[in-house]
């Protein structure tokens, strides 16, 4: 009994701390505007209603924003994981001269705050004629995804025994073939880890999506919701929370099915 308490009591405390905002968001999403304005018991719904969800989906372009965000997140993930994989492979398996410099440079890429970088970055985007092109967010997001994913995959690939490659080379395989046919399948847990991390960060990004897109059809979930559900000093709280909950679902589903892979992938990359 004592053993169980030692697990479930702390677990419950963590659960309350981490989940409380979501429980509150859930309850808020099912209350009517009138009930929210009265500000009564936050943990009780007097009149359960789906109106916030239906209004959100019918009166705003939420479905479009959701589709946009899904497209961007998946594409940015694919691009970043691919680029990170081949870069990590080059750095750690091919050991070409200057690979240390490259890997250091990649880490240094992290230290730039998007809150200011977006101004000089904007002139670059304009010059490339990428402004208001939804797909342009894909390479832009790669700038903050590639560094961490590369580190992750470097760590992971380090631990793969060299004998595998040597055996393949004896059989006449080219380095490129080794990259795809031998190493890639083994690296899958690490790749999944990197993919999950990339997907999460892409899904949540706000500033670049706000600044570099301009048409309504190109808005992402975060940008669309804040721009259309915050009218001056009137916040449509019910719809905001409803949208936030729906918005969290894809990432939650991904994590629910893949969290074991994510952990395995990270674990593989930090093994001594």
């Amino acid at each position, binding site marked *: 009994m004592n053993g169980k308490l030692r697990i479930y009591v702390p677990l419950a405390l963590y659960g309350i701390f981490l989940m409380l905002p979501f429980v509150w968001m859930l309850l808020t999403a099912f209350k009517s505007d009138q009930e929210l*304005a009265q500000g009564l018991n936050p943990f009780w719904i007097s009149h359960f209603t789906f109106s916030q969800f239906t209004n959100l989906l019918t009166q705003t372009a939420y479905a479009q924003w959701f589709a946009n965000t899904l497209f961007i997140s998946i594409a940015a993930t694919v691009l970043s994981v691919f680029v990170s994989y081949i870069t990590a492979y080059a750095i750690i398996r091919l050991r070409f001269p200057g690979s240390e410099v490259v890997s250091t440079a990649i880490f240094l890429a992290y230290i730039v705050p998007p809150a200011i970088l977006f101004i000089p970055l904007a002139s670059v985007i304009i010059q490339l004629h990428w402004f208001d092109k939804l797909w342009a967010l894909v390479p832009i997001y790669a700038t903050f995804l590639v560094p961490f994913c590369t580190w992750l995959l470097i760590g992971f690939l380090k631990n793969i025994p060299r004998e595998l490659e040597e055996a393949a080379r004896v059989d006449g395989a080219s380095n490129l073939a080794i990259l795809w046919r031998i190493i890639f399948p083994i690296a899958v847990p690490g790749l999944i880890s990197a993919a999950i991390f990339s997907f999460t960060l892409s899904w949540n990004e706000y500033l670049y999506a706000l*600044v570099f897109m301009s048409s309504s059809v190109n808005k992402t979930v975060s940008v669309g919701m804040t721009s259309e559900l915050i009218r001056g000093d009137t916040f449509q709280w019910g719809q905001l929370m409803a949208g936030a909950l729906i918005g969290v679902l894809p990432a939650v589903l991904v994590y629910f099915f893949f969290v074991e892979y994510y952990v395995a992938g990270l674990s593989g990359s930090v093994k001594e």
Partner: protein
Amino acid sequence: MPDRREFLISSAAGVGAAALSGSLPIAAFAAESPFKPEKGASLQLLRWTAFVKSDETVWDENTKKFTAATGVPVTIQNLTWNDVTPKAALAAQVGSGPDIVMGWNDDPFVYPDKLIDMTDLVDFMGKAHGGWYDNARSYCYDQDVKRWVAFPVGCTGNAVNYRKGWAKEAGFSEFPKDLDGMLKLARGLKKNGHPTGFALGHAVGDANSWTHWILWGFGGKQANPDNSIAINSSETNNALDYARQLYETMIDGVAGWDDSSNNKAFAAGLIGMTMNGISIWYAEKTADPALFPDFANATPPYGPVKTHTISNNFTSAYVFKYSKYPNAAKEYLRFMLDSPQADRWVTEMLGYVTPALKGYSDLPIWTSNPNITPYRDALAGAKYDGFNGRPGKAAAQALDEFVIVDMFADVCVNKMAPKDAMRKAEAKLAAIYKRA
């Protein structure tokens, strides 16, 4: 040629009905306008998301009428009002973006040389609609480049919002006309368990509105006409002292309030008095129709200077020089702010935006309900941020850095002595004005 305003008043009903039914010959108005859209023009407008849905609906419909009459398509991008400024700044910086931006306060003064000259449009509309309120010039005429860099649209007016029943309980059947009376009322409300609430956090709209109103009401000012710093004075001291007393009648937590907090608290009946745009009153109509008549609005009382010193958020439209269709842009703005389009716009959004053109103060909407009337006069009694210095970059930055708000918050929340708070604000302003 009949004054456009007289024409409007004499045929108000006809115009209104005709405009609503869409049978009005719009082309007739367009023909008289000196602004001819370029061939093949198309426009992109960046505006702030309308605070009330009817604003957006009518604006969009009027825009469609413009396109039908001139063949110029207009795409509108709506962003939440605080996000318009960075977007516009970006456009100015990179030289590409929307043609027209409907922005706020001193925005146009941050990059005046990137904006086209609006003098002709300003003169044309001023003549046709009874002239402009003073603040129009304060926010749109740049004194450095010496021309109109923006076209004044109007302001989201501020008034004092209060609960009639509770005010009566505190001994006031009519809202007091001066600040002393208002303080008495505030104390009475607090005593009866209905504290007041005025934002003291970094709430862009609500914190700036009441602090500037009180500051100016006592004769305090940020700068002199030559832009020397004038904040450190006995008048400011008196304003701070008043605010400190008013703070004692307030509900807890106002220093952490954002722009939506007073709306929430007022709607939930937690406070008895605050200051806001008409949206706070408008929201009650649908939220609680039974209780709605108890919510009232009053013209902000005046202080020892014995004139009104209201502070509003001013919105203006400016056109970037990189736009390929400046004439189309001007004609669009002319159309949207001209009768009958603007009449319908102002009326259907219940006067949410008080137009900068004096002519629109005669619209029947303002007197249709005594609670709407205070908003009609928001601009008449208004000063501009940076008063009494020159409007421009420095004033813009001082507003964005919450110098005045923080001075009041230092006294009320941090219990700083007024002379120390004034000195701190003075130093901040000196640095800002030196840079600009």
